[in-house]
């Protein structure tokens, strides 16, 4: 058996260098890698001529900071990994849906996004029994949120099982990345998950830069880091406010809702858009930070820092809040590892998973933000990890603004993409690991573009967190994950 090819984050290789194994070997290889501590960062197919589909796996090893790549051609069906490797389950369903392949032995073979319509028109897992009842919620929810369908199997208040059926937001992003006009690509990326515009744009920009051999000025790297951490601050603050709201604790809910906006407005100070639209572009950033603007940013950041500290600390001091947060929606470390959860959800289970540390890129190669973990895996842990991260992102931003490297914020010329190459680009978005895999064909055109939003890994985590919980705690558990529907649905 050939050993898999390993890359670092943002590195490229010739597309032909990725080992092409027999299907059985590929399966063995992936299982062994996962056994040996690797995690499936991406597992996807692409047409390989005729009826053949080439499966490719990106296997991440955080301790080593390497990404192993391997592939195999399959036709009609393949032996499912899922029974031996649960974290493959949604990837295999996606492959089955996209290519009509059958993953033999997959325990729960269902559509993922319903690309041919009829979302959630499918069989759900059912618990039978006299006092068992089913609750169906969505796609249109009570709040101002994205659509998704949740099917609970309940015994009284207790949830035995939750199944989540998505796909309502499917708008063909991956397909359009390849088939559509180039001018639209960056906008598809920025709106892939609109609250993670910076995170996804960074992953895309880095992939394009690597494939074209462009060098990104140091100043742009620092500005990207500032923007990415501002995005984290805004979203984490918003999540803590929303968690407070879900337990009816209004002081933090209302202050936090406002302070989230204060952070968003800092991103708007930088680039005019609260969501960072238009900031990150291949080659650098489109807006520079002049000294006056930098001074204003720091001043407003200081004010927001004071406010957020005061607002959030009220949570930990309020027994009625803590009573709702603690031991609600717990996930064990084992389940977290098996499902391959990422981001704050994984770190809240004591699993030190953070792309900024494991696969450092850009500015994070030179400046480290301490990793934040907690052990309990419950709503409290997911809230507390966010709070720790808020406190650690702020000094990072201050430091970057102070030590902003001189020079241009964007490389001069755009280079064409090199032919026949492949790049894996990981970024730690505020929800966790963002993975983009880009590949060019012999003419230097984009031939494959695979996107894995952190939500794709984590939705199953939410379903598991609900087991044995009161159904009335669903909003709280849901908020503690705050996953993206559109990022999942693409």
């Amino acid at each position, binding site marked *: 058996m050939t050993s898999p090819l390993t890359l670092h984050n943002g590195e490229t290789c010739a597309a032909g260098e990725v080992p092409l194994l027999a299907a059985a070997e590929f399966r063995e290889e992936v299982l062994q890698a996962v056994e040996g501590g690797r995690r499936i960062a991406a597992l996807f197919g692409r047409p390989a001529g005729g009826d053949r589909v080439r499966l490719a796996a990106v296997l991440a090893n955080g301790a080593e900071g390497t990404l192993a790549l391997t592939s195999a051609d399959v036709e009609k069906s393949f032996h499912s990994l899922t029974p031996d490797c649960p974290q493959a389950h949604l990837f295999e369903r996606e492959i089955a849906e996209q290519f009509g392949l059958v993953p033999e032995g997959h325990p729960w073979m269902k559509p993922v*996004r*319903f*690309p041919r*319509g*009829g*979302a959630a028109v499918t069989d759900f897992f059912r618990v039978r029994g006299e006092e068992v009842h089913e609750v169906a919620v969505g*796609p*249109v929810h*009570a*709040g*101002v*949120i*994205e*659509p998704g369908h949740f099917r609970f199997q309940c015994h009284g208040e207790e949830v035995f099982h939750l199944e989540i059926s998505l796909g*309502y*937001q*499917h*708008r*063909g*992003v991956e*397909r*359009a990345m390849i088939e559509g*006009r180039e*001018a*639209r690509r*960056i*906008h*598809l990326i920025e*709106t892939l*998950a*609109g*609250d993670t*515009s910076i995170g996804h744009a960074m992953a895309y920009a880095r992939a394009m830069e690597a494939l074209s051999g462009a060098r990104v000025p140091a100043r742009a790297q620092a500005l990207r880091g500032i923007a990415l951490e501002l995005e984290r601050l805004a979203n984490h603050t918003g999540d803590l406010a929303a968690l407070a709201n879900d337990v009816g604790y209004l*002081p933090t809910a*209302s*202050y936090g*809702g*406002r302070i989230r*906006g204060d952070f968003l*407005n800092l991103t*708007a*100070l*930088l*680039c*005019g*858009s*609260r*969501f960072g*639209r*238009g900031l990150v572009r291949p080659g650098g950033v489109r*807006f520079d930070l002049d000294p006056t603007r930098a001074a204003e940013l720091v001043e407003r950041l200081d004010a927001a820092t004071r*406010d957020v500290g*005061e*607002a959030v*600390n*009220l949570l930990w*001091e309020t027994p009625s809040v803590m009573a709702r947060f603690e031991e609600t929606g717990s996930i064990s470390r084992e389940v977290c590892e098996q499902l391959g959860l990422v981001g704050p959800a994984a770190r809240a289970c004591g699993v030190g998973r953070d792309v900024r540390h494991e696969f450092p890129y850009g500015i994070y190669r030179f400046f480290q933000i301490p990793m934040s973990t907690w052990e309990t895996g419950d709503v409290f842990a997911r809230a507390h990890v966010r709070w720790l991260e808020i406190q650690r992102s702020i000094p990072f931003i201050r430091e970057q603004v102070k030590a902003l490297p001189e020079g241009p914020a964007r490389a001069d010329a755009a280079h064409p993409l090199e032919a026949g190459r492949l790049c894996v680009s990981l970024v730690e978005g505020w929800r966790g690991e963002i993975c983009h895999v880009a590949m060019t064909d012999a003419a230097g055109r984009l031939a494959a573009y695979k996107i894995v939003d952190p939500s794709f890994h984590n939705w199953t985590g939410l379903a598991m967190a609900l087991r044995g919980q009161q159904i009335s705690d669903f909003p709280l558990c849901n908020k503690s994950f705050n996953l*993206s*529907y*559109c990022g999942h649905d693409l």
Partner: protein
Amino acid sequence: MFDVLLARWNQGHRTVGFPASPPALPDRFRGRPEVDPSKCPAGCRDCAEACPTGAVRFDGPSPQERPHACPPLVWRGRTTDDPGGESPLVVRPRHTDGGPASGRAGEEEGEVRGGGPGVQIDLGRCLFCTDCVDACPQGSIAYTTDHRLATRAREDLIARPGEVLKLAAALDEKARRLFGRSLKLRQVSAGGCNACEADVNVLNTVVFDLGRFGIQFVASPRHADGLLVTGPVTDNMRLALRKTWEAVPAPKIAIAVGACAISGGPYVDHPEVHNGASCEVPIDLYIPGCPPHPVTILDGLLRLLGRLDAK
């Protein structure tokens, strides 16, 4: 307890002065564009080529603009393609991309629209990304910090040289008596990116305090006076949007927020989407942007209710 009171004191009163005072917007904010075709060299189409969505046009729809026909929707064995219940109270400008729109006061029927040849920007498709500005060697296009963008008719969203944008007029007297002091909206998110949703939701925070205008988002369409739609309406959300619309008791209004809901936005002409909410509901108010700034949304809502001067 003392900490709670201290925090309350420290956090102060933070509701914006808008609409009484002008909104504080960042200097790099990209609002209403202005075009000056006098600077354009003959035949230059650089801006249109750079535009991701076909929002830049010359003398009519951009060549990138293709007519989108929604296939009929089959529901409960019925094939229906007519948007649901018409309100007898509300005079609706119907979606008439490119053609003359009803409800344009002061415009004579059959009159050829002014503006003449030259670069125009369809704000319904625009992402306010300024790629066109970067592409233009002459500086013919400029994005101002003017946040006022909402209109009542699809046609009014075309920014033409030398023309002022025809901002949204208020609902008629009868509708205003119904909704003017209390408007309950159900939000439907139909395939967008969640940024429009986020900046609609932010209106509920203490910063914008939407409740002070009597506008409220409600949990059920049965409690609502209308829908606020975001997203390009994916095929998978179309039926849900239709059902939600039909569940709102008449008379009712519909509001499209964001480029997606108006035209399909960044996903315009993807086979997976239906190019905006007008495939299912008749739109009374268009609020452009990607996403629109919360102030732009609030401005649009207040104009519709006749609570802002028509300036």
